[in-house]
């Protein structure tokens, strides 16, 4: 008979082992399902995971897609460490894109060095305030933040649709729900000579390193962690959980807003309903997959980005719908949560009962 025992200290080995194990299990499940449907499982999985890595332009696109995922996830990790379940990166992303984009449409005659920081700040402020609504409702009315952030996700999507059908609609856009194309001066510069990879990728990398350092040395991040680990202890040491909650949400929302505006003022170049939304939800998976650690999330965002591109490839190559991405992502998260069990528990074979 097997029995489980709680480990005295969490297993370091399993902390590193469980993500690859979860990925393997998710792939194995995919293989099984594809084989059951009489599809060439091996070829599909290769196309799904390996082909996006095979040429330069795909690699650039992987990094480009990973950028918003990573920035959102960095913000979410701060909330999750404080055990504030912000599910609203999606809405905060859209808020950042919408307000930042609206500002960008009006700043086309400013020089780039002035307009770009301005629209980025506008995006950050918008994301921050959007998250701030949920934080405020949580601290003053004890309204569950999971539900309010999700409601705000839906609201922001409708708000975007409304803006694009009204105030921000491109007057020459044949009634499509799109804004006008942004002027070149409000498009983020590329860091590559060939192809387009916005400077956002570099900013994401810098933010990752910054969070890595802050996680270790900043007392504020320690306080967030303390709030999540032991709220009563935090309160006892004179901290205000309300203030910390507001701060964590504001930072998290600000980062999501930044990701939103950099996506709009970067690869997309206009406000449109056709942006690949869903980044905010995928970032949740990135945050968990990366174990809320900056370097972990860097790898996780790249992996998730590969699955998006891979899904496009298998759609073209094999006619398999893109929804497979979310199945893979959902299964991956489930497997990861399940294998995390071994970080804190060990399975022993019980000695037989003497008798």
């Amino acid at each position, binding site marked *: 008979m097997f029995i489980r025992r*709680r480990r005295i200290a969490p297993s370091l080995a399993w902390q590193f082992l469980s993500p690859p194990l979860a990925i393997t299990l998710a792939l194995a499940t995919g293989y099984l399902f594809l084989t059951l449907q009489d599809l060439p499982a091996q070829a599909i999985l290769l196309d799904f995971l390996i082909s996006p890595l095979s040429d330069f332009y795909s690699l650039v696109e992987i990094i480009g897609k990973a950028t918003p995922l990573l920035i959102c996830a960095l913000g979410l990790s701060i909330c999750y460490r404080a055990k504030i379940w912000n599910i609203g990166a999606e809405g905060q992303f859209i808020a950042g894109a919408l307000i930042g984009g609206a500002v960008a449409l009006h700043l086309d005659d400013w020089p780039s060095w002035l307009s770009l920081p301005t629209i980025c700040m506008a995006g950050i402020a918008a994301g921050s305030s959007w998250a701030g609504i949920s934080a405020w409702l949580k601290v003053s009315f004890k309204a*569950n933040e999971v539900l*309010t952030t999700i409601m705000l996700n839906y*609201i922001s999507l*409708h708000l975007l649709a409304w803006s694009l059908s009204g105030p921000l609609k491109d007057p020459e856009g044949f009634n499509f729900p799109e804004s006008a194309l942004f002027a070149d001066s409000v498009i983020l510069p590329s860091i590559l000579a060939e192809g387009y990879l916005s400077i956002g990728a570099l900013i994401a990398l810098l933010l990752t390193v910054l969070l890595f350092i802050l996680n270790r040395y900043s007392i504020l991040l320690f306080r967030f962690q303390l709030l999540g680990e032991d709220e009563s202890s935090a309160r006892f040491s004179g901290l205000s959980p309300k203030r910390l909650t507001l701060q964590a949400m504001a930072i998290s929302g600000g980062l999501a807003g930044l990701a939103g505006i950099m996506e709009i003022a970067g690869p997309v170049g206009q406000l449109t309903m056709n942006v690949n939304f869903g980044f905010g939800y995928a970032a949740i998976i990135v945050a968990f997959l990366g174990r809320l650690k900056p370097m972990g999330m860097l790898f996780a965002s790249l992996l998730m980005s590969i699955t998006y591109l891979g899904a496009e490839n298998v759609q073209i190559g094999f006619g398999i719908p893109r929804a497979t991405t*979310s199945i893979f992502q959902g299964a991956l998260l489930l497997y990861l949560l399940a294998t995390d069990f071994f970080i804190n528990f060990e399975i022993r074979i019980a000695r037989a009962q003497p008798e």
Partner: protein
Amino acid sequence: MDIYLIEAMITAVIRSATPLLLLGLGIIISERAGILNLGQEGMLTCGAVASFLTMLATGSFPISILAAVAAGMILSSVFITPVLILHTNQVATGLALTILGLGIAALAGNPYAGETITAYQVISLPEFMSSPILRAILEHDPIVYLSWIIAIGVTFFLRSSSSSILIACGHAPRVATILGHNVIKIQALATLFGGAMAGLAGAYLALSFTPIWSESIGAGRGWIALALVVFASRQVGRLLLGAIIFGSTDILQLLLQAIGLSMSSHILAASPYLVTIAALVLLSRQNNLNPKLREPRSLGQPNI
């Protein structure tokens, strides 16, 4: 306002309240047992696709409903197994279930996007009950009736002495264990019931409410129902009231047109979510004062 508009509005309110009521009943039972399953949207959509596809294949309503219920239960077991055995974080596991469920539904329904089926026929009242208002209230399809029966059943169950075991699992699983109850089994059953209800709600959406397949058929109702249950502080009566209020926001457009106001459809579409937030704010605070209405103490906590 003429009588036919009122009739249409009552029918519409009941129709849009039904999926929320069904979802809410399932959530009430699982949350009373201490399980927070955020995967409602995924289970709902999978239930919808299961019934839609079964309907296309068999043309039988009862079989389609059963398929939806089964789909919901299978998905809820995907949630509850890691939660109970491996103590995974319920919030994260629920989110994973939502993502997984939406993916499965989108994949399965992909070839049929935009296809329609014949909607479930309403059961006509006997001739002598011809009052339009009465017809609007009582003339519905069998799933609506089923939701009423289940609501009554859940109400009676929660009033019976046997519900104290369920409630004890939600507040103090340790105590329930000490007193000789199998908490894991009870929580698993409660979650499966939740899955079945979400599946049934999905069947209603696909077979009756919008019998055209679209992968966004759920439209966030799973999440709204979760909020509604908080609003109702896990009481069936208040859930019913909440579902009706939310059903009414769905027909807001109809109402506004009737009184001669026009508003952007996008803003109207956002109104249920705004109302949800307002409801959360209004009730989250005062529910904590009465211990009978308080959130189950170990809701969402791993039972170790």
